[in-house]
């Protein structure tokens, strides 16, 4: 059971997406685990073959407990239970007595021991991690068809599907934030940024694009923070066991508010190397999956900094609370039209309040000021993003 957050102690395995005998590759999603933050998809970090499932769906186990056994490629695979025949028997097995004839005059191949399951049903069952063994078939010759699998998916509505438990999530947020305020000596900085060049850049870029391909200011801000972090390593990483470990990779966690309350801040991996278009797509994807409760474990644990943006909710500024073990959080308010002094004249300009909350154990206000100033400077040259 992987740790999917600083305060996670246990998780419930809800669904296996692989079964014994399946090949897995590093990065594959193999299971879904329910945590206080909702259902999280678990990636595998090894390549090999699943030889044994150790934790059955519905079981709650502590962090660190093995969930399944994976054999390295080539390693002898412990034959899984049940009747999975060896891949290639030396002598072909004699076909058993043929099953009762189908209504269609198709010659029958399968032996009686093998369940009759339609390809569509197999596909759906694999997608949803449903065990075909317990299903009753309603198709030709009693075959299990896709509708039977769909019905089985609908049956147990409780606990089975993501279903965010908002009370649990509130507890988790509370624990993390209390720990943050208890342990992290925050310091806070703020600045107001002239956003007119960035907005003009977006207007040029989006001209002629259909709404679904337009880039929003949010993506520009994420990219700017990621690029500025390259020169500000003391804000990117984790403070653990009494010392700071800077992260080479830049994975900006983007705070996503959930409908009905609660919040997650999953990572956009290698944020600094993504184009604005890719970032836009990644953001959309992440927001959608956050709200449907389908995030991957790595997205929960990997953010090296958090960005929170409450402009859409209509506030001018936000100063965040650091999510441990991270060491900084950047906040953006709402771009607003304000009188602004430009070269001695007052002009209407779109301006944005940016804030930084950072961990004083790791950095000082001086470095934080440079980091914020860098963000400001980069937003004045949006073509270089």
């Amino acid at each position, binding site marked *: 059971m992987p740790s999917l957050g600083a305060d996670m102690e246990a998780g419930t395995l809800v669904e296996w997406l692989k079964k014994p005998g399946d090949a897995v590759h590093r990065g594959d999603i193999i299971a879904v685990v329910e945590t206080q933050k909702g259902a999280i998809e678990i990636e595998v970090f090894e390549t090999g073959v699943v030889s044994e499932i150790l934790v059955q769906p519905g079981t709650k186990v502590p962090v660190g407990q093995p969930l399944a056994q994976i054999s390295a490629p080539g390693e002898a695979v412990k034959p899984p239970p049940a009747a999975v025949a060896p891949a290639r028997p030396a002598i072909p097995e004699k076909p058993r007595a043929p099953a009762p004839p189908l209504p*269609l005059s198709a010659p029958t191949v399968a032996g009686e021991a093998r369940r009759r399951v339609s*390809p569509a049903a197999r596909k759906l069952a694999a997608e949803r991690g449903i065990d075909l063994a317990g299903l009753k078939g309603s198709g030709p010759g009693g075959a299990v068809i*896709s509708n039977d699998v769909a019905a089985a998916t609908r049956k147990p509505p409780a606990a089975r599907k993501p279903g965010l438990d908002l009370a649990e999530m509130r507890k988790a947020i509370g624990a993390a934030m209390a720990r943050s305020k208890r342990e992290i000596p925050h310091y806070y900085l703020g600045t107001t940024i002239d956003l007119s060049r960035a907005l003009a850049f977006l207007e040029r870029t989006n001209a002629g694009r259909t709404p679904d391909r337009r880039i929003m200011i949010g993506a520009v801000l994420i990219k700017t923070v990621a690029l500025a972090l390259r020169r500000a390593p003391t804000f990117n990483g984790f403070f653990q066991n009494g010392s700071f470990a800077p992260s080479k990779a830049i994975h900006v966690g983007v705070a996503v508010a959930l409908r009905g309350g609660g919040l997650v801040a999953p990572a956009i991996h290698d944020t600094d190397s993504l184009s604005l278009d890719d970032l836009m797509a990644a953001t959309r994807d992440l927001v959608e999956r956050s709200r449907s409760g389908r995030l991957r474990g790595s997205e929960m644990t990997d953010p090296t900094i958090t960005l929170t943006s409450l402009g859409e909710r209509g506030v001018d500024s936000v100063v965040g609370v650091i999510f441990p073990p991270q060491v900084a959080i950047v906040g953006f308010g709402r771009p607003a039209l304000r009188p602004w002094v430009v070269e001695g004249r007052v002009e209407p300009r779109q301006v944005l309040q940016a804030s930084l909350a950072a961990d004083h154990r790791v950095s000082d206000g001086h470095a934080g000021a440079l980091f914020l100033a860098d963000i400001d400077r980069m937003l004045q040259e949006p073509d270089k993003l």
Partner: protein
Amino acid sequence: MSPEVQNAPAQSAPAQAAPAQTTYREAVRAAIREALLKDSRVFLMGEDVGRYGGCYAVSKGLLQEFGPERIRDTPLSESAFVGAGIGAAMGGMRPIVEVMTVNFSLLALDQIVNNAATIRHMSGGQFGVPVVIRMATGAGRQLAAQHSHSLEGWYAHVPGLKVLAPATLEDARGMLLTALADPDPVLIFEHVMLYNMTGELPPTAGAVPIDKAAIRRPGRDVSLITYGGNLFKTLEAAATLAREGIEAEVLDLRSLRPLDEKTILASVSRTRRAVIVDEGWRSGSLAAEVSARIMEGAFWELDAPVGRVCSAEVPVPYPRHLEEAALPQPAGIVAAAKATLGRS
């Protein structure tokens, strides 16, 4: 250009009216007329197409209107007149060659398969064969085994040919014009049971695309895939199924080569079940090809084995009751569709 053409405008006037009651036969004739009027390179050639008016009366009246240079009766030699059509096409004409039935076209198989289909390739693109060959196909008129077979699937096997099966009045009216515009040989199969079919055709009816299959009846439970004369038996079966709460989707292939695989796979992926209705014999049939395409492209979408309703593997019999028994019929289509749903 023959002087008869000048009569044309007066005779085409009735077509200006509102949707007119017409037949499949008249729709094909109207298409031939329009082609003859529009393009001086077009001419019609075949057995009995002139004086007799065509063995299915498709070309009745055309000899009087267009004269013997453009409506040419030929000797009873399919190989000779199909070959002449191929030569004329290579020489710049746009011939419409009528062969009485697909059974007889076997005498011209050499011309069609070894010449029409290959010359574009063998000349490195220097020559093309823009010929259109029309022929009747199918059974149901008690014409016995030498006049009743459905061999269009054989032609659909051959690269270099396009093979069409117009099943509706719109397609009978429109496919010929698109086929004539094609730079390569196109074969059009007209099912004998369709010629008397009546219906309305708008006066604006004209050329139609020939590369897309059509959903003739939408449904969610099973895809019934067919073409040509069997479309109406299949629609009848779909209506019967609907009374039992089964919504069948009826797909008209329209083009047998190339097959519109995209539309087929999309339909089957929606319904998860397919039955192919094909008047050809089951072994090595077009239905076999469609079935294989579904296996290749939509296997993981299926909830049941693909079903086929084809003709019995006998030469089509002469007696009415045996002929009916040998051909796909609505009851058999209904049974096959139900089998894919596990119902009887």
